[in-house]
């Protein structure tokens, strides 16, 4: 019999690179020889140390990789640019032509109402000079109230998006549609309020949400698995849910900070 080398023992450990007869020979020799067993154990110990070097991925590895890859893929022309494509993807998601028509009509009506609302407020309710000072005093409190309401609205929006993309239950989707309808109106008002408060970033974001909420509010009664899947893809590709959560958390933090500052100033 050929002498058993340490290299043979390494191959034996993995049962790879040796023929069946050689494997049997080594197994028999290991059973008989304590010295060979000790050599084999030394190899096992060395290999075991390598396992202690394991590095586990972070839970958000996929999202982080995507953040780095996405602009590179766009630059390389592998995927279309994501920023101007948001509305296009939404349009694609609204596959039934009648839903597209309803969306366009509703958007037009809301824009008209919004313009009328802003113009009406500006011409009729200009504050008298003596009220300006008290308005400034209350500005921080008003901002806090607005942020709290917007945060609550975003939480509800997040729930609507998740239900629409994950649920196949008809009654749940019906309730979700009604909730989306109510959120359309409040979302529009908060966008206007944010504009008036000078928070253009928040206003812009809320305006971006409006067509999504509108389409959810006008979803056909028989939502299909495909439409839920399309919505999931839409949410994934635009990171809309992530943005909703981020802004919601930011508003919560700002609200708490303002409340703490108000408390300090009263003391």
């Amino acid at each position, binding site marked *: 019999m050929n002498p058993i080398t340490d290299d043979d023992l390494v191959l034996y450990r*993995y049962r790879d690179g040796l023929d069946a007869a050689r494997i049997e020979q080594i197994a028999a020799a290991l059973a008989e020889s304590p010295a060979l067993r000790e050599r084999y154990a*030394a190899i096992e110990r060395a290999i075991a140390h390598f396992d202690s070097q394991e590095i586990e991925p972070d839970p958000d590895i996929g999202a982080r990789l995507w953040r780095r890859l996405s602009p590179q893929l766009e630059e390389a022309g592998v995927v279309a640019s994501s920023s101007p494509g948001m509305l296009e993807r939404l349009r694609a998601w609204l596959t039934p032509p009648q839903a597209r028509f309803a969306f366009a009509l509703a958007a037009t009506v809301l824009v008209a109402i919004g313009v009328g609302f802003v113009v009406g407020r500006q011409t009729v309710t200009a504050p008298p000079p003596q009220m300006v000072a008290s308005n400034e005093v209350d500005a921080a409190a008003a901002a806090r109230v607005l942020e709290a309401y917007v945060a609550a609205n975003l939480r509800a929006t997040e729930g609507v998006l998740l239900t629409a993309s994950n649920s196949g239950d008809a009654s749940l989707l019906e309730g979700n549609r009604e909730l989306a309808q109510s959120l359309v109106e409040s979302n529009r008002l908060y966008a206007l309020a944010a504009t008036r408060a000078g928070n253009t970033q928040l206003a812009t974001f809320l305006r971006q949400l409006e067509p999504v909420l509108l389409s959810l509010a006008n979803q056909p009664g028989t939502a299909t698995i495909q439409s839920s899947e399309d919505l999931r893809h839409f949410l994934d590709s635009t990171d809309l849910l992530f943005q909703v959560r981020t802004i919601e958390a930011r508003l919560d933090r700002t609200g708490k900070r303002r409340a703490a500052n108000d408390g300090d100033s009263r003391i």
Partner: protein
Amino acid sequence: MTDDDARWIARARAGEAAAFRHLVDANGAALFRVCARITGDRALAEDAVQEALLNAFRHLADFDGRSALSTWLYRIAVNAALAQVRKRRDLEVAWPQGDGDAAMPFDAADQSPTPDREAMSSEIRRDVEAELARMSPIERAAFVLRHQEGRSLEEICAVLSINVSSAKQAIFRAVRKLRAALEAPGELA
């Protein structure tokens, strides 16, 4: 290739960002693990996965579907990890180098965590890291693929583009270097 793979690949080939995002989510963690095992470094591993995915997505048209998508990505990722290690070595900022003469005897049967033993354990760990650093990228990759990834010698040859004899020798050298860190000089056969 599975039907699910085929569906996502078709969408990705059409340039749909959501499909690429799905492929990243589905494969990112597994690719990171193998890259981390080969590079021994979190940042290098992440760079390798990113490079691999970018490379794969840019050449998605070349994927012929004869193997699973994950296998194709795996092969690209292993080579990206090897490239990262080589690049790092070229820059001479690789893993810390030990002096090679400080190997301590190690008794695996008695590992109670006394302060002395903990100190010895950390010293051994340093030695092991030094030995791992001495492995060539191919040795480390071949050993990782055989030992931790459970790949056969034939698969290792395909991934690393080497022959069976070279794959075996790379694994043998890797194991010898690991043993050198754990055994007193002169004990090696």
